[in-house]
């Protein structure tokens, strides 16, 4: 997928002006957070499980070569084929080769973020193969040629009219009289259309939430059942998985299953959790005849041994974005690539370069909410800070910011002057904002006030107030 992350600031401007998006964001925000906290409250051991999850992932990362080799050996024992791919190019070529060998015309797809990362759909289309997204949200986005705006609720920024409009434009056999008054009507139409696709597909491509080393299994977790239809009906099943998805045993997977659905959708367990191990066995009445796993690095191994290694614990639950004030102001598309929100702000610079995605780790209020809900305790704010430092060191920070920071530094090293200057500024701002206590706009600070208000200082600096309160308590 082509990144628009360098244009983060323009993206944000567009998002703030998009009334439909802002409505969807306002509607979803409390429900995401509320569902998670209710589910967590129902499991008293949740906090302890976060520690267990973190520790298992750390153990895996420290022994990743061993677990990947063990897993791959067991896939082969089950008659499956593992395709090791260092880069996106290699992975696209591997998927295409399998599809072409199967003589595929149509390929159904379960939801997979790595597929977005690799741009599988465009590649298949280029070679005359029709990819069909079958997750409802991904399907509508494919019709609208939009990227997902969220890693588990890809189309939540759309409203019912958008769905209807896209169906009327794309489903050419649709009766003009057909009414889409209810969400149910939309669902029924999508289900009917996609059933035809499921039955016609030659190859099914899914992602993987986990790979199990001891059995060579791949695991998908869904609510719709589309991933299962995708991997059960066609002759060939291709799994796309990045290297950090492996866990040692089925018992290890249990811990992550207890964390995942609660953190993601606030369910105790998603509807379908499916373990696939190889192709159809002798005597089986259904299931694919071939089972392939394309296992992809694409920049991840380079994170090992760096301050970003812990990011590889991520289980893609979306809790961090669901609780992020920045995400809920600017929406997912602003981030400009596959992964939005706090996890995207850390991962995207690692995968496409800080020169392209340097704005993302800067878009943080450092409120720390993301880290506090992350089921595997990834220190997201700390890592965003690392990126800022690296960006600054490499002189990638824009000149205005560097100048302002050096002016600030010059004053900060001279306490008397600093106090004088900040006192003057606070007094001036306090005077200007005295009426409402907040600024909706401020000269030179549009980047701040367009998406949020700046609280007006109360006419006094922190130093001055601290000194005054000290005096008051002593007297």
């Amino acid at each position, binding site marked *: 997928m082509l990144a628009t992350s360098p244009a983060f600031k323009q993206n944000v401007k567009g998002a703030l002006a998009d009334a439909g998006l802002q409505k969807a964001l306002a509607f979803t925000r409390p429900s995401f957070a509320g569902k998670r906290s209710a589910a967590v409250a129902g499991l008293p051991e949740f906090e302890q499980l976060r520690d267990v999850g973190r520790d298992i992932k750390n153990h895996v990362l420290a022994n990743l070569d061993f677990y990947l080799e063990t897993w791959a050996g067991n896939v082969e024992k089950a008659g499956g084929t593992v395709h090791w791919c260092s880069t996106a190019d290699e992975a696209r070529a591997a998927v295409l080769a399998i599809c072409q060998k199967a003589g595929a015309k149509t390929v159904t797809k379960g939801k997979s973020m790595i597929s977005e990362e690799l741009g599988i759909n465009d590649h298949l289309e280029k070679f005359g193969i029709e990819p069909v997204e079958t997750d409802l949200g991904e399907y509508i986005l494919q019709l609208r040629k939009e990227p997902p705006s969220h890693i588990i609720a890809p189309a939540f920024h759309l409203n019912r009219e958008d769905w209807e409009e896209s169906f009327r434009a794309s489903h050419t056999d649709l009766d003009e009289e057909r009414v889409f008054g209810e969400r149910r009507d939309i669902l029924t139409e999508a289900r009917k259309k996609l059933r035809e696709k499921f039955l016609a597909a030659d190859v099914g491509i899914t992602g993987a939430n986990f790979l199990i080393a001891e059995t060579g299994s791949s695991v998908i977790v869904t609510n719709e059942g589309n991933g299962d239809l995708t991997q059960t009906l066609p002759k060939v099943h291709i799994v796309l998985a990045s290297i950090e998805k492996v866990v*040692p045993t089925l018992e290890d997977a249990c811990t992550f299953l207890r964390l995942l659905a609660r953190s993601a959708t606030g369910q105790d367990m998603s509807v379908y959790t499916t373990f696939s191990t190889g192709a*159809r066995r002798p005597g089986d009445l259904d299931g694919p005849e071939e089972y392939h796993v394309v296992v992809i690095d694409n920049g991840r191994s380079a994170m090992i041994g760096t301050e970003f290694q812990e990011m590889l614990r991520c289980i893609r639950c979306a809790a961090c974005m669901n609780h992020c004030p920045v995400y809920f102001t600017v929406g997912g598309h602003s981030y400009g690539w596959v992964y939005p929100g706090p996890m995207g702000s850390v991962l995207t610079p690692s995968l496409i370069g800080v020169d392209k995605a340097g704005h993302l780790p800067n878009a943080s209020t450092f409120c720390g909410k993301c880290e506090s809900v992350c089921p595997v305790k990834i220190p997201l704010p700390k890592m965003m800070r690392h990126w800022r430092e690296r960006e600054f060191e490499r002189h990638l920070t824009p000149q205005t910011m560097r100048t302002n920071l050096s002016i600030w530094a010059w004053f900060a090293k001279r306490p008397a002057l600093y106090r004088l200057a900040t006192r003057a500024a606070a007094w001036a701002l306090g005077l200007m904002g005295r009426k409402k206590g907040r600024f909706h706009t401020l000269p030179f600070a549009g980047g701040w006030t367009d998406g949020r208000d700046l609280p007006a200082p109360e006419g006094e600096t922190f130093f001055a107030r601290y000194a005054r309160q000290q005096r008051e308590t002593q007297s």
Partner: protein
Amino acid sequence: MSKDAILGAIRRGLKRGPLPDDQKLALRARLEAHPRHLIPARAQLPRPEQVALFLRNVEKEFGTTARVANLSDVPAAVAEYLAANNLPSDFAIAPHPELESIDWASRPLLTLRPGRAQATDAVCLTHGYAAVAETGTLMLPASPHRPTTLNLLGDTAIVVLRASRIVGWMEAAWDLIRAENHDETTGGFMPRNIMWVTGPSRSADIESTLELGAHGPRRLHVVLVDDDPTAVA
């Protein structure tokens, strides 16, 4: 080859070469032992309460349940359910010995088609291998006797489950399959596919609002056969 490139890059990051044999041995021992981690207390209950928790959880997840005393009562329970929901009385059924042992002729109106599901099947009935009380989850391993399509293609899925097969937590269900299943292809215990199913299919992709029956069944009905005297309250 990319395999070596990937493993090499990982090892460079970890600042070591391939693991020495003794460490590999220790990791293999961990795989062999597959230790359990923290198991939530919520399902650590006396048998009757465990079964009750399972049924409650199925219903919480929008499934429905019926409880019968014997396998021979299953046809009546199925017929009743289909009639009550205005569903057709012909259905695809898993060719499983336990289901085949049932005298379906006692309900002559029911028409059974053993085998995998077809796209035209409105109702599919399968055999529950085991179930987990903790979350109300059914465990459905694929086999010639339990085709996967039966879990997915029908608009209504019915699962016949014996109460003795309800366990408290996921790890206990893995214990069952580890002990009972042999896979010819791998020499291990994992069948080609295991589906864990918790309630009927759903989606919240349209305006973040839950709708049942996205691609899989809109209804999930569990017929529980009380074969376990310790499970009856």
